[in-house]
């Protein structure tokens, strides 16, 4: 099976470079999600970087707007806009807002997001509309695990199985961490598998850094009839930069320009891991 580790590595490099240039932003989960994004944009999604508004494209709704750096890096790397533009991240007037803003016209952004707990409802609405229109495209939604503490998410989870939106696939970034610490200490989430199942979803637990496993999971989600699917993707916050891996203090910090070189060296060491 073809994998996309090199692409994920490139995405991580762009994430680090853009964040160091910005001087602020969310490093941890942006790095942690690079494999999921590489697999989605290089294998799973039907999309066209040269025609971002292509009507029949699959929709990717990023509910956790704070990981904008991984979305921006992936989009630029895939050709949606010049990689150079990543340098404008978080700067006044940039299309690359700190949290994605639709009003700035960056191609590939389906929804403004940053306030947690809203994306899955919107993704569900898209999936429901597609069912009404007999469209065959699919909708994907990226959620954080801490984000699942928002009650509104569970309203969407309940409604999605009620409406049998099998054209909807959620991915939970199960890194076990949020701003104030480990999720199970802040506000217990387990058993996530049982909880999603009891709400009527097809639940797949998967290693969020294993490309083959991710692709298999997305494929079985596509085949599932009558139920939406959620991938509980086990990830490591900060993945690729050993010294910050699994450290929740890196949820919302950016490397300084001085730190960047060291981080890139660490990233280099994790380059050929498939």
């Amino acid at each position: 099976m073809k994998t996309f580790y090199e692409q994920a590595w490139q995405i991580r490099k762009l994430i680090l470079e853009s964040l160091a240039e910005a001087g602020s932003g969310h490093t941890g989960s942006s790095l942690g999600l690079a494999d999921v994004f590489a697999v989605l944009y290089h294998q799973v999604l039907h999309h066209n970087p040269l025609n971002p508004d292509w009507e029949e494209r699959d929709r990717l709704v990023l509910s956790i707007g704070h990981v904008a750096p991984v979305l921006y890096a992936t989009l630029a790397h895939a050709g949606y806009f010049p990689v150079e533009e990543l340098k404008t991240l978080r700067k006044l007037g940039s299309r690359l807002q700190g949290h994605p803003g639709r009003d700035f016209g960056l191609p590939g952004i389906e929804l403004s997001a940053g306030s947690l707990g809203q994306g899955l409802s919107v993704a569900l609405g898209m999936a429901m509309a597609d069912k009404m229109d007999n469209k065959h495209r699919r909708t994907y939604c990226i959620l954080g695990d801490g984000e699942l503490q928002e009650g509104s998410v569970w309203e969407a989870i309940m409604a999605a199985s009620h409406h049998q939106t099998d054209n909807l696939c959620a991915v939970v970034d199960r890194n076990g961490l949020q701003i104030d610490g480990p999720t199970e200490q802040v506000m217990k989430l387990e058993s996530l598998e049982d909880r999603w199942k009891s709400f009527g979803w097809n639940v797949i637990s998967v290693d969020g850094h294993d490309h083959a496993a991710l692709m298999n999971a997305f494929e079985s989600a596509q085949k599932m009839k009558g139920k939406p699917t959620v991938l509980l993707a086990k990830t490591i916050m900060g993945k690729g930069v050993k010294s910050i891996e699994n450290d929740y203090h890196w949820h919302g910090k950016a490397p300084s320009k001085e730190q960047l070189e060291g981080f890139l060296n660490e990233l280099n060491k994790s380059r050929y891991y498939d």
Partner: protein
Amino acid sequence: MKFTIQNHKDTRSGFGDGLFELGKENDKVVALCADLTGSMKMDAFAKAFPDRFFQTGIAEANMMGIAAGMTIGGMIPFTGTFANFSTGRVYDQIRQSIAYSEKNVKICASHAGLTLGEDGATHQILEDIGLMRMLPGMTVVVPCDYNQTKAAVKTIAAHNGPVYLRFGRPKVPNFTPVNQTFELGKALVYQEGSDVSILATGHLVWEALQAADLLTQKGISAEVINITTIKPLDETAILKSVSKTKCLITAEEHQLFGGLGETVAGLLAQNTPYPMEMVAVKDQFGQSGTPEQLMKHYQLDAAAIIKAAEKVLSRK
């Protein structure tokens, strides 16, 4: 009154330090936070009073409901999250379970306005003063610096009724007196003047003082008033000032719609209207940038206040 900068501090630290001191003085005070303990500067309270601190997870609506319920035996709950998630995210919980139910909850909101900076528009709420001030029974407090925020925390605990306390993220000049007593509903005349009244709130108070200095050099005498409480509004102080200066400007880090400007305009329209200009965000969302860049871009700085003053004087 002449002010000097004692240091630069964030108003959210004024909240955190005030809450910590209040915790020592009053064991009825409890605090709740939705996964932002560090950003809200609530760690000192959480550490010192673990039995009176509740981590709610990222669940602001639930936090507001729990806070309302906790008032039952006379406890005084302080909720802590960013201004956006303290208001818009949970508006109906506040409206029904806190305001309409007359619950003694203190809604403490950091990262208000544009000056949270690079996170951008999703987080930069510019509508919260309007949202909160529309609720019957709600008190809306907007202190201008660290010392004043710290003092306000103690005062709102002593007040029986729901309060919205708005403060911010960046380090800004800390210039009001240490250990001041904060009086709810009292506007503070920081500089007397005769040509134009400048009514400012929050981070804009310091800008107003700077603007007034520069206006003096141009031969314009500006009266600067710190509107520390948007609701109840100190109508007497405002009417007294404008009856002398006969024109005014308001300055706030908020949307023009629903903010201090419209509040004061409503007051004047029902009394004696005078020419008025409003320094506020004009029906736009914010964006990423440094606090300084944003305040300049959206014309909320001393320069904008001067411009507004000159304009309003020409309309006199």
